[in-house]
Each structure stands twice: as C-alpha cells, then as structure tokens.
C-alpha cells in the first residue's frame, strides 16, 4: 500500500473543449496524515478514503513479523457500532481485501439506520488483523418509516398511512429512476445545479 495514492479521477474530465485557463498551482497528493475518513452516501452506501504513511505500515509489518506471522493482505473492515459502544470490539459487518493501491472504497451496508466505522489494516496469513487506522463513526439514515410515536401528536394507523400516501410516500424512489434518464439528456449549454437536482423528470426531452 503506497503512502500517497494518486487518484486518477483527478485528471478525468468529460469536457470536450480544452480548458482556457492555465491551472499552474499544484495540488498536493497527500499531507503525511495517517488516517481513514468515512462518509455516508445514502442508506445503503458509505464511502471511505484514506492516507496511510509508509513508516506506520512498516512498523505494523515488523510487529506482525515479530510475532512470527506472515503478512497476507491489506484489509478494510466495516464495523457495526452499537449505540454507546466503542468501535473496538464492535461486530465486523463486512470485510474487503484491498488491491491495486486503492485509496478509497464504496461500502455497501444494510438499510438499518445504524452507526458505522471502518478499520484499515493488515491481515496475517493466520487471519489476525493489525490496525493501521480507524475512521470516524457515521450514522446512516434509515430508509423507512420511524417506529417511534409522539403521544401528543398521535393519530390512527389508518390516518397516518393515508397522510403518508397523499404525501407521495409510495412514490419515493420513482423519481430516482427517471433522474437517471434525465442525466443522459440534460442541458447542452447552460444549467443551474439545483435546477436539475430537484427535477422529478426531464423537461428537456419534448
């Protein structure tokens, strides 16, 4: 695992015209940090990026070898953090082998509204895990209706679901599929960010 990963997407661009402005200022590729950062994308997906220093990695490798073990692979462990619990010892929800100098990862989770953290580390051939860095804790939103009621503002189940339906509750997500098509056809010359974002369907395909 390199201490400073180069992210190819930094150079990616779909624009057809050459940039008219010179971008002469370099942007750093790393800062000498040893950390992993976790972000929430949606109820089903997290995103982690990291920067791991070579000296930290070497120290951990030495520790593994000192124990008479053999280094096997770099691993990302996704932990399901219970309320009030420490990340240490929290159950591992999923685990990924890291390859090809990855420095970021999209992580699928279950829609549960739970808290999550990730550990990045090195695994020995015996399966023992040695930590390189631990992320912040995040809470993913729950995609669904809350099971919590407010006694002061109660109503019948029938009325509740009636209001839910009238509000478009059963149509949530429909717009997302339509948005996918929207993205393919969207503005050829001018737009505002919010304009397309808020669209339920495309208005440009008449």
């Amino acid at each position, binding site marked *: 695992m390199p201490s400073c990963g180069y992210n190819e997407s930094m150079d990616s*661009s779909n*624009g057809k015209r050459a940039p008219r402005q010179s*971008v002469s200022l370099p*942007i750093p590729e790393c800062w000498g940090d040893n950390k992993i950062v976790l972000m929430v994308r949606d109820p089903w997906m997290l995103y982690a990026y990291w920067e791991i220093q070579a000296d930290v990695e070497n120290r951990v490798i030495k520790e593994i070898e000192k124990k008479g073990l053999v280094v096997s692979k770099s691993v990302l462990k996704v932990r399901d953090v219970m309320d009030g619990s420490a990340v240490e010892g929290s159950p591992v929800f999923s685990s990924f082998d890291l390859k090809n100098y990855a420095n*970021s990862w999209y992580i699928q989770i279950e829609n549960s509204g739970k808290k999550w953290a990730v550990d990045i580390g090195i695994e020995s051939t015996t399966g023992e895990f040695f930590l390189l860095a631990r992320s912040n804790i995040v809470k993913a939103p729950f995609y669904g209706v809350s099971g919590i009621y407010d006694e002061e503002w109660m109503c019948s189940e029938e009325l509740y679901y009636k209001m839910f339906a009238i509000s478009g*509750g059963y149509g949530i997500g429909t717009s997302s599929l339509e948005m996918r098509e929207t*993205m393919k056809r*969207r503005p050829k010359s001018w737009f505002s*960010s919010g304009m397309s974002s808020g669209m339920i369907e495309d208005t440009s395909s008449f």
Partner: protein
Amino acid sequence: MAKGYLALVLHAHLPFIRHPEYDSFLEESWLFEAITDTYIPLINVFDRLSKDGVDFHITVSLSPTLIDMLRDELLISRYIKHVDKLIKLSEMEIKRTARDSRVNALSRMYNERYIETKYVFSEKYGNDILRAFKKFQDLGNVEVITCGATHGYLPLMDLHKPAVRAQIKVAVDIYKSVFGCGPKGVWLPECGYHPGHDEILAEFGIKYFFVETHGILFASPRPKYGVYSPYLCKSGVGVFGRDLESSKAVWSSKDGYPGDANYREYYRDVGFDLDYDYIKPFINGDGARVNTGIKYYKITGRTDKEPYDRKDALNTAADHAGNFMFNREKQVEHLSGIMDRVPVIVSPYDAELFGHWWYEGPEWLEFLLRKIYFDQETVKTITPGKYLELYDKYPVITPSMSSWGYKGYSEMWLDGSNDWIYRYLHKMAEMMTSDAREYKDPTELYRRVLNQMARELLLAQSSDWAFIMKTGTFANYAVNRTREHIGRFFAFHDQLERGSIDMEMLESAENKNSLFKEINYEMYQ
C-alpha cells in the same frame, strides 16, 4: 378563511463565475441569460401583480453567490453589453425576417422584450435588481430567504461543523447587507439536510428550512400530517417538506406543463440555426456557436418543429395555471377533511426553470397568482414564515438525512466522477480551522491572506462543481475551478507557514474571486 395554503418557493442560484482576466467568458453568460430570461421577467410579474392590487405571497431564495454577482460592477457592465448585443441582433432579425409575417412578429417581440429588459435593469432599478426583491419583500409579497454561502452541499461537509457553520454565517451576513435584516428562512443547498444542522440555523436566527418529501416522511417520531404541515426540530427551527404532486405538475416531462407542444422550444436557437458569418458577432468569442435566446419554434412534437405562436402559448399557460389551481383546490379540500389544522402545500422549484427553460413559466406564474386571488376562496398563497405564525404549537421531529438529488440522498455529489474532491475539501476545512485558531492576532497582510483562504475554501465547496463533474457537461471547467481553488488555498497556507506572502498572487486572487468582501476568517475559530 382559506381551507388551505399554497407556499410557492423559487430557488435562484448560480455558481460564482467571474473572469476579469478575459474580455468575455462563456460561462459568465449563464448569469446574463438568467437575468434576461428569468429574474427580470419574474420582477415584471411581481410588479404587474403589485400594481393591480393582487395580494400574492411567494418565497424566493437568492443564493449569496448570485447576490454578489448581481452587485458586481464588472459583471453588471458586461451584462449591459450583452443586452445591447441582443437588442442589435433582434433589430437585424426584424430586417432579415421581414418577408415572413409570423416570424417577423416574433423578431419584434424579442426586440421589445430586450429593450424593456434593459430599461428595467438599468433605469428602473439602477443596475441593481436586488432592489426589486427588497421592494417586494418590504411590500409583504415576497419572502426572500437565503441559501448556503456558495451552495455547498452540507451533508457531505458534516465532518467539519465549522465549515457548515461558515456556509450559513456568510450567507446570513450577505443577506443582511442587502435586506437590512436577517433571513427568516434558508434553502439548504440541494435541499440537503443532515440531522443536527438545524442547530446551526438556530444559532443565526433562521426560523425555517425545507427538506425533500422523505426527509419528513422518514422523520422520527412519525410525522402526523405528512408534508402538509411544518414541524419543529428540537432546536426550535421549523421544517417544511416538498409536496410531490404539485412539483410533478411542473417538473415532469411526461405530464408536466413545460412539455406542451405550444410552448417555445429551447433547443432551436438562431445561434445554431443561422448562417455562421451572420451570427458570429453574437456568439461566443472563440467562435463556438451558442444559444442567443432568440428562438422561433414551438415544441410541436419530437420531429418537425412548427413556428412558435405567442398567443397560443399564453393561452396554454393560462389553461395550465387554471389546471394547477384546480388541482390544488381539490388537494386542499381533501386534506382539510382529514387534518385538524389548515394544510399547506409546499411547491419549490428552481427559479431558472421559469423563463429560461420554460419560456412561458413567468406568465404561468402570473396567471396562477391572479387566478388564486380572483377566482376562488379555497386556496390562498402564503409564505412559510407567515404559516409558522398561525399556530402556537407544532409537532417536534428529527427529519431524516435527505436531499432532492438523484435517489434522494448524496449520490449526485459523491460518486466516481467527483469523489476525489472530498479529501481536499475536508483537509482544507481542517487546515482553515487550525490556521484560524493559530493566527488570532494577525497583521493586516496575514488577515487578507486568511480571508482569501476562506473564500477559496467556500468556492471549492460549491455543489455545482461536483454536480457538473457528474453530468459531464462543462466537466472540464468544474474540474479546473475546483483545482484552482484547492491549489490557491494550499499555496496561501504554505506562504503563511513560510512567512513569505506572494503579493502578486494575493492581489490577483482578491481581484478574481472578489466575492464576500466583508468575510472574516475568524468564523472558523
């Protein structure tokens, strides 16, 4: 008394694009087109309604970047040149189309509109259309609200609360400088809400914000009234949810009004249709064909396009306004029968849809507001600020994290095309905070550098860049802009550390990214 209310919300925003280093710059025309096609037509609608004594209530959010561009001398002078060119082109078009009476009538319509646009912009409002919005707010017709400073997408900024706070603080400061009071509400950029951010809004006296439908429906505890009543967060800030039914009526391409065959076709513009040598003086400086704004066709169908007929289009807009009002009446009648308080239907749209994309949008809005006032008693328009005054108590909930983007969360701004930006944005926020804490009593020069670093950070955070990278159109520009702000931020940080400031770079940056003149980096402490 009305059985229910309609809260129309128009969100006006453009990213900060200003390139003094070029004589003309293609992307600056986004602002010019929005002024001509959307902002001035909306102002004209509000003026006509006000003059005719129509009691209407509407909410308009003006993003701080848009506000600063609308009061920027360079952009104003360039806009006036832009309108002058449109007037000249429309004059040439009147001559060119003289033999075709139908098209010629349209050439004349454009000519009259551009002349009126210049009059409204320069003479009526003295090159400051923000005065118009202030006027309508003071009259009680328009509730102007704010947005994030640079339209930064806040849920993905949550890791660094001072960065979220700065987006709100700068926005509130800019708002006060124009309107003389704090904003009642905020349009969270991309309608992006993360639980807890309401506490930051409360700190700045903001009374309400909006969330996407499922931000309310998936809230905890269960929301009793669906999206047809505001709720309060624990912080005391009100939250309104978007109504899907009324949104769809305008946004939807299958069933939405803007797709009607009688409306003007956006994609047939003389900038592309006419002889190159003829149109060259009116297109982009580099010779690339662009839209000019003069369009002669109606949507018609998917293939052959027929000439645009303004009268037919306006009749259709009036019909659609009647249909929209009828549906809201039915909606309100149904809701008022099952709710124990007066329902409010919240219909937010991007302002730039009206006039720019949907040419007849402003007229549709005018018809709608007139009809609501004159033709029925069931539904009345209201602003969220006014609705919150109706009751002493509202249910308390925690809205769900949500946005109005693709799939309703953050995927639009976090995917393979744009995820590389976050390690920079987060690091910049972290360094800005630590630098702000380190330089507590800086020299005037260091203060300038720190303030410019804050501007570069805010500009890099603009959700527009990630969005454009995702859509692919203009991606080069978005990538370059992001890299430019990142590069400059780190260069200034290094200069502070080394104790050697590059004055040329500082002055150039201050000149180019000249927004937020009163910014104070200490907000990151």
